[in-house]
Each structure stands twice: as C-alpha cells, then as structure tokens.
C-alpha cells in the first residue's frame, strides 16, 4: 500500500492513483519512418525492471495530473518524484537477481 507524494496534492494513498507504465517513452515523431519491429518496440516493449524503475503515475482520483516516479520494484521504495517532461534524476542502480 504505497504512499505516493503527488507533486501537486502532497502524500496520498495508493487508491487515489493509476499506473502508467514505463516513463520516458516518446511517441515517434514520424511513425511511418519506423519499420514494423521498431514500431512494435515502441508499442509493446515496455521496461519491466527489477530494481530502480522510472515510471508514470496519474493522480486519477485527485487532481488528475500525471507525473513521474522512480521506484524500486522489489522493495517498493519510492526514490524520486518529478514532473512530466523533466529529466529523470540520477540514481544508483540496484542490482537484484
């Protein structure tokens, strides 16, 4: 049961949020320039990191704003929260087998 600090509303409970998967995947500017494999990569090959993962959340039952979260997907520790469009913070990798 995560406690997520919405950058706009402050710390709120997990129930108020929805998940948006991996962050920093940009829609290709010219989709037609991509071959099928590249397009599939954009569409489906989302990261599934065990360790520090940069992901998107939306405060869906609150202010409805999207933002980015860096979270350890094993310990569920939240390491950073930053707005959409911002570059991800530099965090130490965590290696789990």
């Amino acid at each position, binding site marked *: 049961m995560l406690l997520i600090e919405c950058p*706009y*509303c*402050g710390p709120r*409970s997990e*129930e*108020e949020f929805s998940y948006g998967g991996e962050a920093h995947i940009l829609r290709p500017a010219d989709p037609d320039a991509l071959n099928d494999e590249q397009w599939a990569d954009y569409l489906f090959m989302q990261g599934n990191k065990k360790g520090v993962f940069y992901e998107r959340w939306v405060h869906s*039952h609150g*202010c*409805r704003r999207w933002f980015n979260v860096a979270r350890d997907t094993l310990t569920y520790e939240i390491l950073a929260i930053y707005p959409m469009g911002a570059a991800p913070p530099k965090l130490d990798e965590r290696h789990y087998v």
Partner: protein
Amino acid sequence: MPNTHLRRSPLAQLGLGALATNARGPEQNVALRSIPFQTAINLRGPAKDDRFARAVEEIVGTPLPAACRALPGKGDLRLLWLGPDEWLAVAPPDQAHLIGVMESAFGVLERALSGQHVAVNDVNDNYTTIEVSGPRSIDLLSKGCPLDLHPSAFPSGSCAQSLVAKAEVILDRDDKPSELRFRLMVRPSFAEYLWAWLSDAGQEYGLSVLTSP
C-alpha cells in the same frame, strides 16, 4: 428565463424533507444535509500569470487559493483549488449568472493574453453537495476516505479531491466556530449511493438529517 422550479435534486427520491430537522439532536454526533443546485464553475487557466489571477480576484473576490486550499470570496462564494491550473468556484444557486460574467471576462482576457488560454465550464449540475457536520464527522468520513482529515493535516479551509467509499468527491472543509463541517461535492449519479453509504456508516454515531437550504 429558465424555470428553475423545474429543477430536481438527485436525492429527491429519498424524500429527505420528511426526515429532516433543523438542528442536530443531542444524542446525534453527526449530521447529513443535502445541498442541491449550488452554482459551480470550473475554471482553468495559468495560475502563474498575474493578469489571470487578478481577473479572477476581481470577479470572485478572492485571490487564487494555494494548493489544497479553499478561500471565501464575495457573496458566499468559495474558490476551491482542484489542481495546478484548475479551480472550482462554488456559490449559492442565485449566483448562476457568474458563469456569464466569467465567460465574457476571460474571453476578453484571453485575447489580451496572447499565448495563454483560459477555460470556463458551467458544472452546476455536474455535482450535488452533501454536507457532513458534527463532532464525529472525521470518524465517519475516515471510514471511506483515505485522506488524513485530522486538523493538523486538513484544517478548516482545506479542500481535496479524493474518494469516499467508491465515489469520487471534492471535499471542502469549512468549519463553523463550534462545529466540524465538510462539504462533499459528488456527481449526481453517485449521490444516492453516497448518501446511503454515509447514513449506514454514521449509524453508530447517531445521525441527524438536516433540512436543505
């Protein structure tokens, strides 16, 4: 002019009038009240732009509230923060003309603020209001609301969008000097559910139904 007497509260089916009293009874530690037909205007715009903020203040009589806060304006109006570029002006039913005032004012403003844009939406009927008051209000709401409503975390003047049970609500805490008071703005289609839920959850505290304004 529209015939406002044609309007019907989303809770009309419940026949609350027959149950309602004017004040909370001594054994009753929590009270519910239906407040239909409130004027509600959703306002979007650039918070950081002074001209926008000033224009809002001029119309509603209050500066833009800070995050998760609500401020009183003129004529019983309250301006609620909903998000970084979103507010809700709530006022009694007779203030419905404000929407026209805003639309034209911001229309002018938008043209003046080239590159900025503003949106105004009449959401009067998109919400109805249920007021929860009485000393056990926080206990009652906490049964369904994940927010920390303790005065140290959510003092009077706070507002938030959250959940109460399975209904999305806008909570606006506006205590009277001697009484905890929360206003819950909820979509009309959820109103019966929310009312039933609050009535059920409030049973153990003793529950009054107060007369609607």
